[in-house]
């Protein structure tokens, strides 16, 4: 079922999607910048709940996100980042630490034949998948109208890496590319199913998390990530939902391929990983939004509020020539980021003219 089909025949058809590009144009015309830090876990600190509970209890998950929105008032709010939810729904073994996002413990797929059993699984009937969908529904109905609702899915290479092991996928991308194509095709089908459900639940933005793909060269990235992401976008964009390609680490060698994929925005990691955001914006061109890239640990977690202000002002100055820029963090903020630093981040963006 396509995303548009899901939306038709439903009262959600009436739901007006909030366009990232329109919001950006409006902000630019008003002489301000949008601010959309990738943040969820720090709310667990001040609400006194574990990440494990927040990731498994949609009521608490929503409470954390609502609390963040109330306190820092971002332009977009995302559900908590979780790279294991799709793999977990497929039955892979997952470890749930109390105060860290869950992690897939091992990667059982050895051959395309191993995937046959996985094809029988309807991931939408998985309890954790349902919990995330319900969280997005609650964000849609509970958060202020002006806040864009962001949902995450993993990317095709990342899910393939969770299934078969990132190292094996990397080696096979050169030696047995057809095997990786097979994995990515399967992964894409899983991602599309989940993406449609998140859109139906009310997401305005779909952020595709593709950290494993950073290990690939441009040619392999185009074949195994961007080409499959394009298939995901077909559905998503028809539903009027914007898309973000998020890659951790130094993705400078992949910017052109990421931009060519057709996504609405690129979300890039911090300068300390080697990402030069102004250069990335030049490479991406004016038609793709660029988001980033304050360091989540050295600045946001370990820095003082003054350090945050300084880093934010510096980045805002560097990005002044680019209307297609959204102020964000280089990656998801870890637990332990002080509220004071989050407020310093938002205040600096709001005051910058």
């Amino acid at each position, binding site marked *: 079922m396509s995303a548009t089909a899901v939306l038709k025949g439903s009262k959600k058809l009436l739901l007006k999607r909030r366009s990232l590009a329109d919001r950006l144009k409006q902000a630019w015309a008003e002489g301000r910048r949008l601010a959309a830090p990738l943040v969820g876990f720090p709310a667990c600190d001040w609400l006194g709940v574990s990440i494990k509970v927040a990731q498994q209890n949609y009521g608490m998950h929503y409470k954390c996100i609502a609390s963040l929105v109330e306190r820092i008032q971002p332009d977009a709010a995302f559900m908590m980042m979780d790279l294991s939810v799709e793999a977990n729904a497929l039955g892979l073994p997952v470890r749930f630490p109390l105060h860290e996002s869950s992690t897939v413990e091992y990667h059982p797929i050895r051959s395309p034949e191993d995937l046959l059993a996985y094809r029988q699984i309807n991931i939408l009937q998985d309890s954790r998948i349902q919990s995330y969908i319900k969280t997005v529904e609650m964000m849609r109905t509970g958060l202020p109208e002006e806040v864009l609702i962001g949902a995450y899915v993993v990317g095709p290479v990342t899910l393939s890496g969770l299934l078969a092991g990132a190292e094996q996928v990397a080696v096979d991308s050169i030696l047995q590319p057809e095997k990786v194509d097979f994995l990515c095709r399967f992964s894409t089908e899983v991602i599309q199913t989940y993406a449609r459900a998140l859109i139906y639940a009310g997401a305005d933005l779909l952020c595709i998390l593709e950290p494993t793909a950073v290990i690939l060269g441009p040619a392999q990235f185009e074949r195994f990530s961007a080409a499959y992401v394009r298939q995901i976008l077909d559905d998503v964009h028809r539903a009027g939902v914007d898309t973000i390609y998020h890659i951790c680490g130094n993705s400078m*060698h992949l910017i052109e391929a990421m931009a060519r994929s057709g996504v609405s925005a690129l979300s890039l990691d911090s300068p*300390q990983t080697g990402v030069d955001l102004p250069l990335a914006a030049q490479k991406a061109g004016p038609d793709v939004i660029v988001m980033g890239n304050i360091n989540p640990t050295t600045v946001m977690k370990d820095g003082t509020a003054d350090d945050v202000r300084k880093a934010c002002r510096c980045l805002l100055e560097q990005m002044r020539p680019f209307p297609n820029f959204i102020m964000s963090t280089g990656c998801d903020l870890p637990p332990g980021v002080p509220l004071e630093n989050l407020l310093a981040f938002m205040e600096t963006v709001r005051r910058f003219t």
Partner: protein
Amino acid sequence: MTDLKALADAVIKGNQTEAVRLTQQALEEGLDPKTILDKGLIAGMEVVGVRFKANEVYIPEVLISARAMKMAMEILEPRLAAAGVDPIGRAVIGTVQGDLHDIGKNLVVMMLKGAGFKVEDAGVDVSPQTFVEKARAANAQIVGLSALLTTTMPAMDKTIQAIRQAGLPCKVMIGGAPVTQNYANKIGADGYAPDAASAVDLAKSLLN
């Protein structure tokens, strides 16, 4: 006479079959195992490391080259040991307790082996005590700690403290996505490397 440049090229291209064949042939011809290692296998991996740093090749190509070297080393290692050839250094590398990520750690293991180190791969989710035991057993000069999660970074601190308290004379280097030079300074690590190729340079410098 076996062309050691061809052996280096086989490693660079990641051609396992050719790397093993040429290593075997060189040994049968009576070439000194240390010369085969230095001028063939290590020379090849050095080129790969330089190309990796220059963004001419990427992690998949490095892994394939490292695997070719590993296969050739399986037949070369017993001959090196029999000839009494010492590795350039001894290292124990692992991902710290609570962290299951291994690709960065694996890459460092392979690159160090490719540079002529004897490396014990301690695996993932390694406790401070296990690092101490493995470093002691291996008589390690270098211990390498990897972490991908912000929340597992404190395990690096604990591991360094355990190594120091045990009185082991080894140097400790750290790396991983959230790790920085500042953090290395803060916890008293002897060095930080941002990527696997740099980790080899760092390990070599820590030996001196």
